């Protein structure tokens, strides 16, 4: 035993070692991959990012080359910091700081030292670069905008941040990623797939040919070209009309749900967020917390919809059969519904029924049919639920599901909402009466309202609004956007409502805005609104709101216009809607005086009022 034990021990250890070697070298493949990672240099081939076109094929977004100075920290040899910083046109401190950051990111992977040099800077640098080991130039694509419009939905591209790196393994430090708008929504289509070539390095850190004859290499795949549903001319015209105003315009093609224009004001030139000037411009706009140019009002702003909402109040009342089409209601300059509760109305001929109620935008009429709708049911809770369901079937009060990355739910209150507001659950239809005329608890975003009007134009259905039309010239077939969403309102009830909207232009609240030769339907809206500055709640001039669609039969455009503090509906929003419809359907503007009025009138003074510190008057 004593003679044999050492022999056994030696043999056993040899056996274990050879077994372990077999496991490491023959069974487990992960070490081979790790070795490739460590000992090869990856050179990436960034494909062209896809182009973006408008619905008529106009090029909106192309690419331009830019040159990043990269460094692999481990390869960087001692160098003249001062001289190199001068070549790069940055301070030596900045250069040191960038190199330290690169070390922290990874000693072996490339990091950006100076991003996005121009072609001229690049030419000079190229002559100098061979003196600096470990640095090289990576060519990249930047966006080259062919338009000054639509920055809000086009979005922009920027370097990935730490969060992207953590969450999306595809990206590496210094990569570009789409932010906001279409660039963000369709990032994966637009960016294509990066190719990679592996070069083996010897211990003198020279490339000694491709690794394993290139069997690990991949070829880059070009980004997809996208055609948007946007009509860039209409978009540009909308932006022009909205100069010096705040608000949003959303135009949708009812027959397809395609977004024709998506205007937010104030806006910015997309070129401001390209290249090295991006961060400075972005910061400036980010801190503009009053006019908020980065905020897409068309998608994100929740406004009380005001009188256009009467269209839906009317539809719900007809569907619930609580009012006859010809039933007349008298308007005594308002509607009194409690001991001291009264909803005011403006002067118009009385009495009114449904069609003229819409045309004159009579508050009293809609307050009463709304009240009947709610009170048809045993409890106000049941009534509100039914009403709420009808409203939501128009895409109100919830995310619409369009293909852009930002949005708001809007608000259509239901019984839970009021039960929470009145903890005793004792509340009645009258407490919610403002909903009838699109005030009170109801809020919508411009795109929600445009979509709901589009559903009215279609007599009861809509396609989910969307901005992507074609990919590489092939129409998209995503069922999300090609399945009809039916509203809960019977088709037959739409005709009288549409008649009323048509009459708005004939003898109603927008009679002076009628467009020659176009059968247009619309509805004005004027919404009270309040803000809080330093804790003090104050009322501002009403928002000017307008919805329209045209032509009356086979509508081609549905539009919603919100102009913040623009006064009564027909004043700003009505004019703008009318011009937009004419521009889209006719291509040119016949009413140049109307156009001139909009272009020459600014609301900047109105916007400055609450911040002036002086007392001010509203609705002048």
């Amino acid at each position, binding site marked *: 035993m004593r003679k044999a034990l050492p022999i056994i021990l030696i043999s056993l250890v040899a056996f274990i070692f050879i077994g372990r070697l077999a496991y490491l*070298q023959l069974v487990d493949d992960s070490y081979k991959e790790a070795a490739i990672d460590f000992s090869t240099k990856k050179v990436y081939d960034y494909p062209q990012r896809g182009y973006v076109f408008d619905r008529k094929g106009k090029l909106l977004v192309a690419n331009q080359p830019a040159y990043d100075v990269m460094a692999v920290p481990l390869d960087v040899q001692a160098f003249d910091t001062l001289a190199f910083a001068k070549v790069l046109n940055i301070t030596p401190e900045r250069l040191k700081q960038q190199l330290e950051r690169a070390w922290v990111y990874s000693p072996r992977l490339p990091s950006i030292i100076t991003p996005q040099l121009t072609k001229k800077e690049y030419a000079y640098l190229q002559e100098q670069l061979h003196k600096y080991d470990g640095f090289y130039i990576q060519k990249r694509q930047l966006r080259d905008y062919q338009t000054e419009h639509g920055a809000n939905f086009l979005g922009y591209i920027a370097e990935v941040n730490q969060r992207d790196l953590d969450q999306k393994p595809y990206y590496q430090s210094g990569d570009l990623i789409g932010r906001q708008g279409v660039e963000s929504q369709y990032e994966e289509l637009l960016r294509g797939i990066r190719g990679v070539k592996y070069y083996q390095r010897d*211990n003198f850190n020279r490339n000694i040919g491709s690794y394993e004859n290139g069997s690990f290499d991949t070829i880059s795949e070009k980004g997809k070209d996208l055609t948007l549903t946007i009509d860039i001319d209409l978009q540009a015209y909308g932006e022009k009309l909205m100069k010096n105003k705040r608000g949003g315009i959303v135009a949708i093609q009812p027959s397809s749900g395609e977004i024709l224009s998506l205007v937010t004001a104030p806006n910015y030139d997309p070129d401001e967020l390209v290249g090295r000037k991006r961060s400075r411009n972005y910061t400036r706009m980010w801190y503009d917390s009053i006019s908020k140019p980065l905020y897409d009002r068309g998608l994100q702003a929740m406004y009380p919809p005001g009188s256009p909402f009467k269209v839906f109040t009317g539809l719900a009342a007809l569907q619930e059969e609580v009012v006859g089409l010809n039933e007349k209601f008298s308007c005594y300059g308002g509607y009194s519904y409690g001991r001291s509760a009264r909803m005011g109305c403006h002067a118009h001929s009385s009495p009114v029924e449904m069609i003229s109620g819409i045309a004159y935008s009579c508050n009293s009429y809609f307050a009463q049919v709304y009240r009947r709708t709610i009170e048809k049911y045993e409890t106000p809770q049941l009534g509100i639920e039914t009403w709420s369901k009808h409203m939501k079937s128009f895409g109100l009060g919830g995310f619409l599901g369009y293909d852009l990355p930002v949005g708001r739910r809007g608000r259509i209150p239901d019984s839970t909402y009021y039960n929470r507001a009145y903890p005793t659950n004792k509340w009645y239809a009258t407490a919610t009466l403002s909903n009838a005329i699109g005030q009170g608890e109801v809020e919508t975003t411009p795109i929600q309202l445009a979509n709901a009007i589009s559903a009215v134009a279609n007599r009861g259905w809509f396609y989910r609004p969307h901005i992507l039309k074609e990919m590489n010239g092939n129409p998209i077939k995503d069922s999300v956007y090609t399945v009809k969403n039916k509203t809960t309102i019977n088709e037959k009830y739409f005709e009288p409502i549409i008649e009323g909207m048509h009459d708005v232009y004939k003898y109603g609240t927008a009679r002076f805005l009628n467009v020659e030769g176009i059968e247009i339907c619309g509805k004005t809206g004027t919404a009270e609104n309040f803000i809080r500055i330093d804790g003090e709640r104050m009322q501002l001039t009403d928002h000017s709101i307008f919805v329209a669609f045209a032509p009356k039969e086979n509508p081609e455009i549905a539009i919603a216009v919100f102009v913040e503090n623009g006064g009564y509906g027909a004043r700003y929003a009505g004019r703008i809607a009318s011009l937009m419809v004419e521009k889209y359907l006719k291509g040119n503007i016949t009413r140049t005086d109307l156009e001139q009025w909009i272009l020459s009138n600014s609301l900047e003074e109105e916007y400055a009022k609450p911040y002036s510190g002086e007392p001010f008057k509203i609705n002048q």
Partner: protein
Amino acid sequence: MKTFIKLDWLSVLIVLLLVAMGWATIYSTTLAEVNANIFDISKLYGKQLLWIGLGVFLVVLVLSVEAKFYQGFASIIYIVALLALLGLPFFGKTIAGQTAWYSFGSFSIQPAEFVKVAAALAIAKYLTGINVSLKNFKNQFQVLLLMLLPMALIMLQPDAGSALIYLAFIFPLYREGLPSFYLIVGTLAVTIFLTSIKFGAVYVSGIILAILFLLLYIKRKQKPNYFLFIAIAALCIGFSFSANLMFDKLLQPHHKDRFEIILGMKSDPSGAEYNTYHSKVAIGSGGFSGKGWLQGTQTTGRYVPEQHTDYIFSAVGEEWGFLGSSIVILLFCSLMLRLWFLAERQKSNFSRIYGYSVVGILFFHFFVNIGMVLGVFPTVGIPLPFFSYGGSGLWGMLILIFIFLKFDAKRMD
């Protein structure tokens, strides 16, 4: 001349093979320029070639000395060796925190690598003394002292790895009749310690109790000493419960890391596990037949730290693959088994015991070093004989082995 004729040429051949492969690997791990001159002694591979040349000279010298000299002067050699270690704090040179070298100009000598030889001679001499028996506690204690003295001095450098090597004398001691009790206790202690840390004391205690009942059941007919069995089990359980406490209180944090990594309780490829991880990557990427000499991407790219010294086996693994590294392991094995066989055939007790020590020392270097490089043994800085860069290590190992081969050649005299 007689010595050379009777020399065990098989062992010499294996040693030569290992030295040659060792140098080739050092060349691969230290090559840094395109037009290399292997004799350039400003480069590590050139220096190592010089050490090898001088090593041959040393071997001739060792073989020329009368075999009786080593036995006769064993005590004096041992004392000189201890003095050499004692002098280090006063005259030694400090490299990387360890005061382990005497420096002569641009060359340094590491005495610890030679003290092993002295200790092996001294222990052989002690055990051949009249009336010395390892059954005897006094003799056990004295021989332990012979081991502990150099061990303690080396610990002071501090060089835990080199000190650990003195456990190698378990080989001759066990072979010469050290009671198995020590071995069993040692093995049991290590097993309980490691399993307690990995799985927890409660779990380990359960197993100990299970074994206790099983043993009592099997031996129930032989009327076992119940008290003894239960006492041993109680001791084991007590040790198990104190293991975690000892682990936390006695070990340095970086030593704890090494244990935890080996036990699979921690993974830290970019920190404490860096060396081992890159070593495994290099070996694992070698595949069956390796990437070829000077072709290893990890070796030529210098990804494994200390690859020309302690981690040199990773270069063998990468460049020569499973085939080459298995051959190296088998060569070491053959050398150890051959020397063990030679030891067994010695007529003189002194040379036999010395032979056992040689195998023991070789084994510990081999086991600890390759175990570490393969990631199955905690990180301990011990060189791989004939492979790791360094003159002292090579010379110490050559002297150790060739003194024994001299004994073997003279065994008939």
